[in-house]
């Protein structure tokens, strides 16, 4: 019971991180696609909520090391390298964004911030996805003999790469749809709508690629989905929402488009959770997988974690709502 409550909060934190921080990273990538510098729009849109968006990741980490310590330590040991690269992205992304905004003098330096901002917006989602892919694929192997077998091949493979790419496309898609409601300029809005549609297509294509890559790397992902009607159902619903989203985008219905895009992403995450559950890390060779139940901390710890999470949620959610209301009220009215 306690463990299930913790799992719920873990899933919730991942969903919020993807929805909010994901779109935030996506906003950086989006600039490559629309070929514009909508830095100001991005800054206005995410400035006040930027810090809060990123705390979700910290929460995921804390839940993992307190509640599922062997999962946390296995991931951080075997996926040290992609984690480090993801962190480099986080460092550059977070600082470039703030430094750009708070540099007292606007001069050539803004070009550097720009470049760093854009590149690091790619790095983080890519490696985040690769880490997720590595956990699913099952090449993490405590008995590995060589360095590359232990620390490289678990994450440097076609499947992990495809998940990384999927993550990147998904985040950028979210950003494009969010941004539609953030701009007052018609050409810019058009550009976002176009990008949103293109990225949606791209997500379908790359998503298909993930399945192919899985088969290629020996992970029977199709069969797994076949065995799980709930996951399969979620994917079908996501696909059915596609035309609805397109209509909504066509009419620039801001709120509807956001809700639909968010729903699509949540459904994809849900399908992934369900197909994996209760496994978090598939281990290679003969080792049993690490599941949320086999890795769960003792009940006394879980109880404290649950208390902290529930009390925390009771404090944070109203406060977060107040923040969003203070800074987002104008946009919602437009929609």
């Amino acid at each position, binding site marked *: 019971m306690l463990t299930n409550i913790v799992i719920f909060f873990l899933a919730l934190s991942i969903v919020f991180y993807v929805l909010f921080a994901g779109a935030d990273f996506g906003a950086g990538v989006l600039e490559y696609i629309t070929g514009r510098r909508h830095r100001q729009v991005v800054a206005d849109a995410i*400035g*006040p909520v*930027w*810090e*809060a968006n*990123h*705390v979700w*990741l*910290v*929460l995921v*980490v*804390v*839940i993992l*090391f*307190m*509640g599922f*310590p*062997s999962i*946390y*330590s*296995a*991931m*951080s*040991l075997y996926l*040290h390298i992609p*984690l*480090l690269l993801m*962190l*480099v992205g*986080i*460092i550059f992304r*977070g*600082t470039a964004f*703030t*430094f750009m*905004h*708070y540099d*007292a*003098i606007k001069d050539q330096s803004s070009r550097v911030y720009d470049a760093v901002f854009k590149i690091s917006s790619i790095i983080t989602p890519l490696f985040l996805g690769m880490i997720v892919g590595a956990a699913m694929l099952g090449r993490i192997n405590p008995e590995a003999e060589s*360095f590359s077998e*232990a*620390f490289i091949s678990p994450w440097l493979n076609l499947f992990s790469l495809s998940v990384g790419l999927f993550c990147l496309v998904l985040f950028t898609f979210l950003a494009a749809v969010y941004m539609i409601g953030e701009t007052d300029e018609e050409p810019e809005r058009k550009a976002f709508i176009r990008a949103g549609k293109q990225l949606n297509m791209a997500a379908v294509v790359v998503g298909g690629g993930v399945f192919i890559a899985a088969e290629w790397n020996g992970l029977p992902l199709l069969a797994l989905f076949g065995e799980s009607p709930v996951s399969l159902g979620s994917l079908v619903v996501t696909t059915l929402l596609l035309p609805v989203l397109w209509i909504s985008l066509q009419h620039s219905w801001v709120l509807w488009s956001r809700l639909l895009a968010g729903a699509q992403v949540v459904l994809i995450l849900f399908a992934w959770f369900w197909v994996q559950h209760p496994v978090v890390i598939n281990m290679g060779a003969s080792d049993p997988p690490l599941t949320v139940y086999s890795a769960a*901390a*003792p009940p*006394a*710890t879980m109880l*404290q*974690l649950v208390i*902290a*999470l529930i*009390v*925390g949620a009771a*404090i*944070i959610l109203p*406060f*977060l709502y*107040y*923040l969003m209301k*203070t*800074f987002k009220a104008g946009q919602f009215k437009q929609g």
Partner: protein
Amino acid sequence: MEDLLAARLQMAVSLGFHIIFACIGIAMPFLMAIAEYRWIKTGQQVYQDLAKAWSKGVAIFFATGAVSGTVLSFELGMLWPTFMEHAGPIFGMPFSWEGTAFFVEAIALGLFLYGWDKLRPWVHWWTGIVVGVSGVASGIFVVAANAWMNSPAGFDWVNGQAINIDPVAAMFNDAWFSQALHMTLAAFVATGFAVAGLHALLLLKNRKNLFHRKALKIALVVGGLAAILQPISGDYAAKGVAERQPAKLAAMEALFETSQPASLTIGGIPDVENREVDYDIEIPYLLSFLAHGDFNAKVTGLDQIPRKDWPPVLITHIAFQIMVGAGLLMMGVGGLYFYFLWRKKETIRKRWFLWLVGACMPLGFIAVEAGWTVTEVGRQPWIIYGIMKTKDALSPMPGLQYSFYMITGLYLLLSAIVVWLMYRQIITLSGRYASANTTED
């Protein structure tokens, strides 16, 4: 480079970097709140300008603190997976509460930074207070986790496994209060003196500048008060260390022989080979009193500790001397300021005083870094005192030095950029705030 050394250095660099931003995140919101309070009460524009100008700096520091903190939460596992696998469920509780504190802090900061025009003045003021209170809370939580490493509690260690885990007892371990108190004060000392020092140096250019005068006063009152309290809390911390971690105390004091009564060794260079201290000053009886509150008490020396369990004596001793020296100096400067304030003398118009405060600018942060060196290096060779050795917690991944080089390089770069950004904030002050051009007699 050896992997163990690389990992320890990476930890030291990452934490030593993060703590600077953490201190600022703890104390700055209160300095801004004082300025804003005075603005609301008196209506003097200079106070709002000050709060706004400070908040620009805080935004830059906060972002750097947030990313370096995020990195830390991964590094703990990337470098010490064995430690985290055992310790996570035991000392995770303060971190789980810290999560809430971070959220509240981040949300309130968003409201504070972007809400100048959107919120009513008192509502805005309160968001600043919330940032500060949650900053203090997150500091206390994370230091409680560190205190557990020094003073493990809340579990039984049987055959290399923790059983009977009690996270509440672990969080409220014997060391948590003294460390949390000392650290929270340290944040105010360090930030107060750094800010005061900066404005003092700027005042030296124009001693009548209204903006810098007000800034200096606020920072010096806060920093000075904290600096006067700090040695008291430090003494309390030392008494706790003497009781719980005799090896650390002996290394701090470079006490090779168990003595009764024990003399206090001031300065000097410990010679570990020959078990003696060169070039030091010794004050009879004083260590017995400082460690145990009794001039004739016995103080355990390193001779009672197996040689393989000694912490690095040289580093620990010197770091301790630096912290205490800096602490006493800042206490003196703080005392001087309050003395003149009480005698109604305007010290902040005097050149010598401005130079003195300016010279103290880095002292608080030096003391913080030195203090953490005492705590962390003095705990060696243990990662969990008496339970697990640091070397047994290390990640088996070869080539950890590359992580270390990368993180160190990144943080050096970030430090340089932050300094440069601050410089740009300062040189544009008078263009942005009219009060930064105003003088008063």
